[in-house]
């Protein structure tokens, strides 16, 4: 089979589309994680973190096991039911501001 520039370009375009789709899939697949792991995860990683809620304020709370991470997302419906000491599973992305990690919650489930 003869290979010319056109065929290489088509192969490159197919590889590019496949790579992009795979990257989107990986970006939207949550990984189960402990609070400690979330503190060292790369920013933007989608995680499912289990821990105990503490220090609940109007806009955030701390999710703790042996260590704690701040969770933002108190506008979510389930966050209104949250009380201190309760176990929760937080689905969210790790964010970093001024060197400090926090989780931007997309879903909070009470255990």
């Amino acid at each position, binding site marked *: 089979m003869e290979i010319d520039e056109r065929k290489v370009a088509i192969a*490159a375009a197919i590889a590019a589309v496949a790579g992009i789709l795979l990257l*989107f899939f990986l*970006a939207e697949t949550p990984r189960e994680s402990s609070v400690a792991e979330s503190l060292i995860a790369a920013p933007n990683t989608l995680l499912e973190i289990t821990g105990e809620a503490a220090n609940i304020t109007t806009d955030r709370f701390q999710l703790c096991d042996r260590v704690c991470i701040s969770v933002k997302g108190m506008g979510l419906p389930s966050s209104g039911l949250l009380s201190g000491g309760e176990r929760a599973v937080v689905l969210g*992305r790790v964010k970093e501001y*001024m060197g400090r990690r926090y989780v931007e919650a997309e879903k909070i489930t009470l255990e």
Partner: protein
Amino acid sequence: MLQVLAVAAGILLGILSGLLPGIHSNTIASVLSTLPLAPEFFTYIIVAVLGAHIVFSFFPSVFLSIPDDTVVASVLPGHRMALAGRGREAITVCAMAVILASCASALLLPVSIALLPIAYAAISPHMALVLAAASVFLLASEREGGKIAIAAAIFLLAGALGVATMRGGIVDPLFPAFSGLFAGSGILLSFTSARGIPKQKEGKTELDFLPYVAAGVVLGALSDLLPGIAAPAQIAIFASVFIVANDARKFLALVASIAASHAVFAFAALVSIGKAREGSLAIMEAIKSVGAGDLPALVGVLLLSIGVSAFLLMKLSVHADRLQKIGMRNLNLGILAYLVCAIAIISGAEGLLVFATATAVGLLPPLLGVRRTHVMGLIIVPSMLLSL
């Protein structure tokens, strides 16, 4: 004495990070922030790293075609000059432009502190529109209908790659992405030709690029208004549509000036609008709060670092001929091996996937006969979405 030591250490670290693609000045700042250093020592070291990194990142960009995210626009004209035996001249232009632009920007710093908040308030609500309009001009520069359609498809493909990359939890995502778009694809294509880096001529050049340095200073200040994804590179690409730079030297002067003035005006942005437009400055601000009173000393350290680094870069470029002895094929294989190892260590398996995908995207413009700048959709599209 402590300050001198900090500046010297910063310059050495900046040279290292500039010469080794993948090690960003932000990475150095991030590592240093974990060490028990006195805040003042830390501040000086970070600023010196920033200056030296900007200057030395032109070396891999020009001679090896491996771009840093700030000076990515320099990779194509710079490497073209190196392939024509004019790499040392390209380095002279970049070093001179960085020195001139950083000094001019330092003089304009008081004005920018007053004007940046006004300009930021005026532009920030319309940022997405500004980026969209500039992108349309970028695509329209192809002039033929068919080529515009191909360029738009490549721009969107690169944009989708940018969004997918930024959305995932990948450490330093721009490193594998830019390395694939420019170095990876360039190396694959180079295996089809026997062209190597020829003997480099002397680095003498005419100082006829001052208007481009002046334009770079203004555009560098503007880049500090943009959201943070490689803003100097975006500004340089957009500028290439509007500013006619008919030889590679002038375009390099423009890119180098934008990078230098972006770094200087980043201090003004930090003090006046509270936005740290350089990752390393954000880390510095977290350790020691920076006020207007600190600016003379910090900008002085930056200028000193740029001056010393530019001198050392010129000395290093004299030895660029040694690259010729390695042979282009071996050099390319070495670069490819280095990139794969560095990406695997820094960004992991997902980083390698980004590198492979970006290499595939980077192959498309030369194969389909459109300009390679359209792959900058990688940073422009996510910036547009971020501004909505």
